[in-house]
């Protein structure tokens, strides 16, 4: 039997884990995106050493389980005395920062390939037109390649962000009280896993729905060229309409 009043009370408890889940997602995705951009640039740089190091990074982080990566960072780093005495130790001994670091490093590997794919998908003619009018590499990248790459990579990147929101659940394995951490604690106290985990799942569903909807809206906003010109928005600005 499902106990509806327990359902409601466990939801109320689980909701307290949302800020941590959202924080872990947002910080790791933001940091990961910056790292990914750097890695993608290394991949397309044409410099063999940079390309190879980025490839090696991506190979390792994509090829090993996130949970193992979290354990290595959380449990493993304390084996190094140099680290224990470094300025970073106050952060590295915190489960919170270990989770953020592990998640960010992991998403960076996947996102780098998504960004690289976006950059490579830009039509050669678009690049050629930019070169032919005298753009420098940097200007061309900023004005033509990047805006178009962004449009191409948004669907895949939105997917990656959703995966990351769900991956934050692994942070509960290193003592963090995110939505999943609270759920596990509730279950161990109540022995009612169905109610608790169903509610936890519903919370993740809501978060991923918001994220995917946000990405859809953003994609819509930056791709007016994929739609027919809107009939309610005149293509001509008002002052020229009067000419007929």
């Amino acid at each position, binding site marked *: 039997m499902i106990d509806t009043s327990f359902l409601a009370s466990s939801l109320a408890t689980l909701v307290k884990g949302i800020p941590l889940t959202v924080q872990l997602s947002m910080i790791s995705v933001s940091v990961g995106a910056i790292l990914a951009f750097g890695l993608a640039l290394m991949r397309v740089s044409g410099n063999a050493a940079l390309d190879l190091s980025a490839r090696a990074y991506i190979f390792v982080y994509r090829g090993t389980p996130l949970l193992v990566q979290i354990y290595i960072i959380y449990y493993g780093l304390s084996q190094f005395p140099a680290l224990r005495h470094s300025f970073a130790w106050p952060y590295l001994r915190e489960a919170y920062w270990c989770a953020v670091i592990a998640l960010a490093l992991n998403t960076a590997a996947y996102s780098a390939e998504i960004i690289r794919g976006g950059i490579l998908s830009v*039509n050669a*003619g*678009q690049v*050629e*037109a*930019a*070169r*032919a*009018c*005298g*753009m*420098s*590499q940097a*200007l061309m990248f900023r*004005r*033509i390649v990047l*805006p*178009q790459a962004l*449009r191409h990579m948004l669907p895949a990147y939105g997917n990656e962000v959703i995966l990351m929101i769900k991956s934050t659940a692994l942070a509960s394995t290193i003592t963090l009280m995110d939505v999943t951490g609270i759920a596990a604690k509730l279950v161990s106290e109540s022995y009612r896993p169905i109610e608790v985990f169903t509610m936890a799942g519903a919370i993740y569903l809501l978060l991923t729905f918001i994220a995917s909807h946000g990405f859809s809206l953003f994609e819509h906003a930056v791709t*007016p*060229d*994929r739609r*027919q*010109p809107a009939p309610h928005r005149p*293509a*001509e*600005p008002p002052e020229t309409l009067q000419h007929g």
Partner: protein
Amino acid sequence: MAERIPEPVPAVALSGIRKSYGSVEVLHGVSLAAHEGEVISILGSSGSGKSTLLRCVNMLEVPNDGTVAIQGEEIRIDRRAGRPPRPSDAAQVQRLRSRAAMVFQSFNLWSHLTILENIIEAPVHVQGRDRKDCIAEGEALLERVGIAAKRNFYPAHLSGGQQQRAAIARALAMHPAIMLFDEPTSALDPELVGEVLKVMRDLAAEGRTMLVVTHEMAFARDVSTRTVFLHKGVIEEEGSSADVFARPHSERFRQFLARA
């Protein structure tokens, strides 16, 4: 001593251009100069090297040998052995490219920018001109090529003919010393060719310097001042368009005309 009248500096001078891809040489030492006000049509069957020649002018292809000069300034090329040739001074190439605007077969308007944004992009960001001036000028150019009403549309919303006219306006907006046309009508439906050729005729009539790779025989014969016929990487026939079409010397050019 007789005083010599100095030769005017050509808008573009190509000299002894050789270009290879791997072991295949597609241009075997081609020389060609375009003086101010000249409209030169470059004809040739596919594979003759005509587009490659045009792309050597703005270094979209870097010739393995020979020189390219735009308004008398020779483009410096790094031809150290063991790697593909490339311009030695990127800034120089960028500066000269903005004087030799190119119109492509597949238009290549930037898909994420509106038509007007396409036109002001290079004047504002490459040439550093005032945005307001560029917008006013861009609107006038769009008016001129007959698509002023489309200025806030995206390229995907325009027909091929309209896109190519926008691309011509984009090239004009840079105030180029020479315009390079790479088969500008070849990707168009037959009924759209006329509107683009009309714009090009108008440009020729106002004395623009143009280098046009084309399959349009009527344009070459009636509009261009000179015609060059390229065959297998060498110039087979060259002269004033009237002469070349009335009295072709080369047998190959005669055959080419007969097939066209």
